């Protein structure tokens, strides 16, 4: 028997439970008696908590007062935000000189400027921009934050960084407006875009040399007052430590992961031992080792400041965790990709850099962001070994004479700051994940 449908089935509107608010409520919150009871209980708990917080933290709170006593006088059971407000600069910048705060802010702005092109459409060579952020920006920012006399090495790095920042920015503007790269555009302006490749390259080299000369001249005339690292603190210090940790974690982790998969036994065993050693010890132990035991192994008279020791410890620690993330990412790449890379004649580094890593990094992004969030939070451990990072600062509010005993408000404020930063990062990573998996389905 043959059944043939002659009319196409017309589509009908969805049942009400799928489209209206009432339908949704009914389906998800009140579908059975038990569900309805649970929903009501939860609503009641939420109501009580939110109302309590509101009364304590907003309605009855004191915003302006000169000390804790005055807070009590105004409102005995409201929050005393006045203390937090008075300490806000300390919480964010530590004891960094108040007249020099612009340097920290400028450093942050420069980072935004440096990295913004990564998110702009039509900008090319984003890998280079990313790499330069990791390898050059820290020197520029480092000098900006620390100041003082520049060693020759610092002079060179600051020059490179300044030229690179200018180049990046110009490149990004040109990219967004025309979709071209900076070198192409320069060559077109000079009418050399049809010239043979060697001429083009030489022209670009001359331009680069000129830019470096200008950059060098500019930086010689630029000196900042010294701000010793012991004055760095607060959120600023937290971001410096975790920022450097994050920036070194990825390259370090990639190298360690490749080492662990190497065919050469010495390299493999050493990488594995290193990774396992750091991963089997808590960060706080690593920090104590770095600050108390590390100097014992150093030659006489060789003194590293505590901040550098901490940064090295955090970087190594995070690199080892990152190495495992990278290794997992590498394992997701099928063998056929390696074989295809071999058959088009790529060597080991070409294969890794052009074929394997770009794909593996995509798989790894959620995990990478996850470890970054973890690192940002873990960094607060440095307050235990006596650095005044944000947590250290939040806790010193209660040691300050006028605000003695003020614990809750500063810590709550810190929690909110961390919550905002971390949830923005994890939202972004989820967004990336969706975007990239859409990309994979292409």
């Amino acid at each position: 028997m043959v059944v043939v449908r002659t009319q196409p089935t017309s589509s009908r509107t969805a049942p009400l439970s799928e489209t209206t608010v009432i339908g949704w409520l009914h389906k998800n919150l009140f579908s059975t008696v038990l569900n309805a009871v649970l929903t009501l209980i939860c609503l009641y708990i939420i109501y009580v908590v939110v109302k309590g917080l509101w009364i304590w933290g907003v309605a009855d709170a004191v915003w302006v007062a000169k000390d804790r006593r005055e807070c009590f006088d105004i409102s005995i059971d409201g929050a005393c935000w006045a203390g937090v407000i008075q300490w806000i600069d300390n919480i964010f910048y530590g004891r960094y000189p108040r007249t020099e705060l612009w340097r920290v802010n400028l450093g942050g702005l420069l980072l935004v400027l440096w990295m913004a092109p990564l998110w702009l459409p039509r900008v090319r060579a984003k890998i280079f921009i990313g790499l330069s952020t990791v390898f050059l920006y820290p020197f520029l920012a480092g000098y900006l934050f620390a100041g003082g006399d520049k060693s020759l090495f610092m002079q060179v790095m600051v020059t490179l960084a300044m030229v690179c920042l200018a180049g990046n920015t110009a490149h990004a503007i040109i990219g967004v407006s025309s979709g071209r790269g900076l070198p192409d555009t320069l060559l077109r302006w000079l009418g050399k875009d049809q010239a043979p490749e060697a001429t083009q390259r030489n022209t670009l080299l001359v331009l680069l040399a000129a830019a470096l000369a200008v950059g060098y001249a500019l930086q010689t005339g630029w000196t900042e007052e010294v701000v010793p690292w012991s004055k760095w603190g607060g959120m600023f210090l937290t971001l410096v430590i975790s920022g450097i940790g994050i920036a070194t974690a990825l390259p370090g982790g990639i190298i360690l992961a490749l080492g662990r998969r190497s065919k050469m036994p010495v390299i493999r065993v050493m990488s594995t031992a290193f990774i396992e050693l750091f991963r089997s010890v808590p960060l706080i132990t690593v920090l104590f080792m770095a600050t108390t035991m590390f100097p014992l192994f150093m030659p006489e008279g060789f003194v590293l400041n505590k901040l550098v020791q901490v940064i090295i410890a955090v970087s190594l620690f995070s690199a080892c965790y990152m190495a495992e993330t990278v290794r997992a990412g590498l394992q997701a790449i099928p063998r056929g990709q390696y074989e295809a890379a071999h058959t088009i004649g790529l060597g080991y580094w070409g294969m890794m850099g052009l074929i394997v890593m770009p794909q593996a990094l995509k798989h790894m992004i959620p995990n990478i962001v996850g470890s970054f969030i973890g690192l940002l939070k873990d960094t607060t451990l440095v307050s235990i070994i006596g650095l005044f990072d944000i947590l250290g600062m939040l806790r010193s509010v209660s040691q300050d004479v006028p605000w003695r005993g003020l614990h809750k408000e500063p810590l709550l404020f810190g929690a909110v700051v961390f919550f905002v930063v971390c949830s923005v990062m994890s939202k972004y990573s989820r967004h990336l994940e969706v975007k990239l998996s859409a990309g994979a389905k292409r």
Partner: protein
Amino acid sequence: MTSTDTQDTPGQLASAASTEVIIQLNKVNKWYGAFHALKDIDLVVHKGERIVVCGPSGSGKSTLIRCINRLEEHQEGDIVVDGILLDKNLKHIDHIRREVGMVFQSFNLFPHLTVLENLTLGPIWTRKTPKAEAQEAAMKYLTRVKIPEQANKYPGQLSGGQQQRVAIARSLCMNPKIMLFDEPTSALDPEMIKEVLDVMIELADTGMTMIVVSHEMGFAKTVADRVIFMDEGDIVEQNEPFEFFNNPQHPRTKLFLSQILQH
């Protein structure tokens, strides 16, 4: 081999084989752990020759051709490709890999790159071809495999047959002297098999040296100068296609042919 001069059967491509030897295998042995995968393989391939390799699953066909470009390492015997002895010397391996293109059953295109980038990556990075030139060549090969309009798509946006044609073009972009195919059509739907085989037949027409692992008997009859039958790591029988299919000698060959001709 019973005779070297081909009897021209209808539809058979004229042979382009010369007397110049381009691949030579001498007593090649390969083990995977304790498992003996290739046993004393002797094989001489002439320039321009088209060889189809067939045989039951696990007989060592893939292993054989993967040894030729060192995706697998053999333990005993000599492999000489394009006059170069394949040994541990990385320079030799690189040289041979540049002369030998390979097409896989599962395409193995680079999913994060567009079709055009897939094609130009090799020439730009390993042959140091200028980008514009590489792109021009890539477009030429894409036209040859009949999908120039797909140049800016990503592999995931193409059908299996299109992907495999891109993979062929990618190999051709390296200007190889030899092309190896490992079951290029067995992951494809029937209607796509033909479009890939057509491209391969055209390639054979240009005089490319080809070694093709395939069970496409029609293709073997049209294109091959020689059919090799492998079983349990041995080359059991080799012959020109007409004789191979109509007059198999070895009982294993007869059994195998009767099995694949059943469907």
